[in-house]
């Protein structure tokens, strides 16, 4: 397989799909859907080749390195380590799922919709595999605008407000990050090294303390808004509520991970001193996010909003794990990202199924679904439990590892995080009870005769997620194995952090 640009194929196959879609007449919906699905599936198949990643081998594998804009030292450098690999797979799987799920629900401007989804896929995949900071930034921005269009065109009633808020929030963060990237590259070049944006070259360089502090804050804003961390989360509920189902799946499943990935890939190894110094603050914010997200989720009347706020809480776990700087914490953070992608993606998909039929998501309106659509109820239950963190399902491993890591950091922090495991059980189970076990409301009864259970297409879309949520819960070893090396490298970077004259800042 040597010499085959696997990563380029993974990343750019969707774009080839887009080019093909451009020549298909817009009225031929069937051809458009198949074409889009085929492009995404091909990308998925290519991404499966990454399973050949050798966990004991060199750090970045499947490397590709070509000159791009030589005047500025920008290169087209791609490569994956264990961390990128699992996230690439998550992205390709969830993209295929959302393209497949959109088969029925999307009936207007079908061509544009699939073009946006495929461009989005390329952007997200590119972020995970770019090893040149500039290239990373370009993909980061490319992934932003398709989502803007998806929410803005195919979204709910307040879609324009939601999508503009989403874009402006994200753009502020990412533009500041661009300045930080430039500052880091320039500082690196100022020491006499060649001017480069290459990740491996920039990493491990001793940047001045003030530069680290400012650059860290800029990176932090970009990533924290994406994660989203409290108090930068306010765009998320709006975006989720207004987004079409597939948009929500991608948004929660992959886009939030872009932020988490950014922290693990860039903030910590590039700016370890600043990371260590800022860690207490970030851990504090993460704790607030975990508890606040849980409490707010409890009182949400809208199903989608509830899942959205539970995301804030769960992504807080990711941040907590990332910044306690020990093996369990970091592994847990990565695991939690994958698990959250699968479970929340599935939950949004399931919410979408009921929404398509009733055009309502108010928990108070729905009720008693258990008797009418038992298979749907069973699946919803499965992912509810996965989200709570029931042992044997994927959510448990991540949360458990993070709490373990937090314990090694500080008992009180761990205790705070533990409380929320209870809170999450409260809001999820309470929601489940109201939606599935109560007496159906009068409002709901109007839909009763037409209400249908999960259909064949939806089963196909759900199937990979069901397999993953169980497999990841029962047998986490393969994933933990491939992410072990990246975790070690991050630990090495932050433990070697000198804190010269910087520690007393706090």
């Amino acid at each position, binding site marked *: 397989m040597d010499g085959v640009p696997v990563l380029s194929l993974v990343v750019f196959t969707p774009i080839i799909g887009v080019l093909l879609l451009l020549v298909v007449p817009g009225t031929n919906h069937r051809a458009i859907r198949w074409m889009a699905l085929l492009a995404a599936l091909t990308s998925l198949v290519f991404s499966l080749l990454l399973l050949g990643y050798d966990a004991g081998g060199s750090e970045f594998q499947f490397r590709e390195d070509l000159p791009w804009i030589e005047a500025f030292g920008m290169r087209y450098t791609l490569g994956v380590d264990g961390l990128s690999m699992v996230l690439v797979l998550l992205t390709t799987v969830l993209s295929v799922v959302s393209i497949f799920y959109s088969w029925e629900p999307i009936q207007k401007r079908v061509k544009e919709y699939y073009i946006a989804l495929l461009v989005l896929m390329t952007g997200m995949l590119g972020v995970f595999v770019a090893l040149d900071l500039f290239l990373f930034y370009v993909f980061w921005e490319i992934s932003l605008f398709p989502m*803007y269009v998806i929410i803005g065109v195919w979204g709910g009633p307040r879609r*324009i407000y939601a999508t503009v808020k989403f874009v402006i929030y994200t753009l502020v963060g990412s533009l500041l990050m661009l300045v930080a990237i430039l500052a880091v590259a320039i500082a690196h070049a100022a020491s006499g090294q060649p001017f480069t944006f290459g990740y491996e070259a920039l990493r491990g360089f001793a940047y001045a303390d003030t530069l680290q502090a400012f650059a860290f804050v800029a990176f932090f804003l970009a990533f924290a808004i994406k994660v989203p961390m409290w108090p930068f989360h306010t765009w998320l509920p709006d975006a989720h509520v207004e987004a079409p189902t597939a948009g929500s799946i991608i948004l929660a499943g992959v886009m939030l991970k872009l932020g988490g990935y950014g922290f693990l890939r860039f903030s910590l190894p590039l700016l370890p001193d600043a990371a260590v110094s800022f860690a207490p603050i970030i851990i504090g914010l993460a704790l607030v996010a975990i508890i606040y997200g849980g409490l707010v989720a409890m009182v949400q009347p809208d199903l989608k909003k509830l899942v959205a706020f539970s995301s804030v809480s769960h992504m807080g776990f990711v941040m907590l794990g990332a910044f306690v700087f020990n093996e369990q914490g970091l592994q847990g953070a990565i695991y939690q990202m994958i698990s959250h992608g699968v479970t929340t993606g599935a939950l949004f998909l399931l919410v979408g199924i009921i929404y398509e039929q009733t055009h309502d998501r108010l928990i108070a309106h729905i009720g008693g679904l258990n008797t009418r659509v038992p298979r749907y109820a069973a699946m919803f239950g499965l992912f509810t439990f996965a989200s709570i963190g029931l042992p044997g399902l994927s959510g448990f491993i991540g949360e458990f590892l993070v709490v373990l890591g937090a314990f090694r950091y500080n008992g009180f922090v761990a205790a705070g995080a533990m409380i929320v495991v209870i809170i999450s059980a409260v809001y999820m189970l309470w929601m489940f009870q109201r939606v599935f076990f109560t007496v159906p409301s009068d409002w709901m009864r109007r839909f009763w005769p037409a209400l249908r259970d999960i259909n064949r297409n939806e089963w196909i879309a759900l199937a990979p997620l069901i397999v993953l949520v169980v497999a990841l819960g029962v047998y986490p070893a393969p994933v933990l194995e491939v992410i072990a090396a990246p975790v070690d490298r991050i630990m090495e970077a932050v433990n070697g952090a000198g804190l010269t004259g910087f520690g007393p800042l706090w």
Partner: protein
Amino acid sequence: MDMLDDLITLLPELILVALVLTIITVDLFLSRADKWLLTPLTVAGLVLAGAACVVVWDVNETVYAGFYVVDDLSVFFKAATILIGIISVLFAPSYLLVRRIPLGEFHMILVTALLGMFVLASSSDMITLFLGLELMTMPSYLLTGLHKTDRYSNEGGLKYFLLGSFASAIMLFGISWLYGITGSTNIAEIGAALEGRMSGALLVAIGFLLVGGTFKIAAVPFHYWTPDAYQGAPTPITGFLSVGPKLGAFALLIRVFAEALAPLRADWLGIFLVLTVLTMTIGNVVALVQVNVKRMLAYSSIAHTGYIMAGLAAYANAPNDETAAQGIESVLFYVLGYAVMNIAAFAVVGMLQRDTRRFGGLNSFAGLASRSPGRAAAMGILMLSLTGIPPTVGFFAKLYVLLAAVDAGLAWLAVILVLNAAMAAFYYLRVVVYMYMRDPEADPAPIDTSPFGSVALGLSVAGVIILGLFPGAVLALVEVSAASLF
């Protein structure tokens, strides 16, 4: 023999002069129905002048007793000028024809303005510089008021003329002070004479030159003429005005501030930084509240002026020549990229004004994606490029300025710049919202589909994307051009 050599270095200018005369002559013999022939004629002439630019590339000579310089910097500006000319000429005719604005005059005046920009870019003496400036701005006043039956066009033209002449006078006064202090009008000699000097009188000279210069680029607080002039002018001409004279004015700023006043750059930097921040911020804030796309683009062009000024500020603050060159390079790249995307954006507004009672309001963009997918997509890409989103030339231009600013130790300016860019995203994306996320008006106005315009739009958008993905070739040109200053 010398005389002939000198003439060859002036080949692009000579071709433009010939083109002006040809247009006037040919116009006389064309019947009304055949006037459109002037457009291909002008484009052909401009292409020829562009080819001549290739001939004088790398000549690097000062001719006519030090009054005129043909260095790579000037050739770059000339090439960019020709590009601007070609795009503007292609976009304008159908808009003008509907409004019965004579095409012959338009082409002739436009090419004359281009000639002024040529002279400006090549001036190595304050006298030539002023001549070039006037040769550029006089036709610009005329172009603004070209729609003589429209009172907004008249108002814009008159305002532009009155304030512009005033600024020119101030500029001239500054030049005379500089002459009084240094005893020379030659730019290189002024630069040499000013080495290590500073005095109250010099400060006065700098002040006058700065006011004159920033007026011409429409920087805050000397920008008040811009919105009215831009809104009043026929839309495709607004596109030209927002980049053409601006490019000329930046050539002027570079010649005056980065060449004549280069030794004093630490002294003019402070006030220049203040103007830079004010320009980008106020331009954006006011653009936010505009509901007319044409006016919004007018204000946003002020913001872009601010971004370009940041490149010049980076030049002035640079610790060494290499970084200083980067500042100038970023200005050149930005001006070029901005020219392409902004003319095209105004042109799309113009295309939606096929109905002469339309003035480019946001509503005329409603649902454009379903009415004219190609134009909507083009406008969408242009808006993203103006916002500065990869992979477009607008992004790369901003990146270049940011890089120069951070490198020159102006990281705080870079931060202000990106916050401004995020603010700008709001109003640029509003156009996208209208095009893609709203339904068309009940009674949508017709859209202009002239072949020239479509070709130019296609080329511009392709240029915006290709330059964004592979800017390497232009970067190399820009680097060589900026090097002629150092």
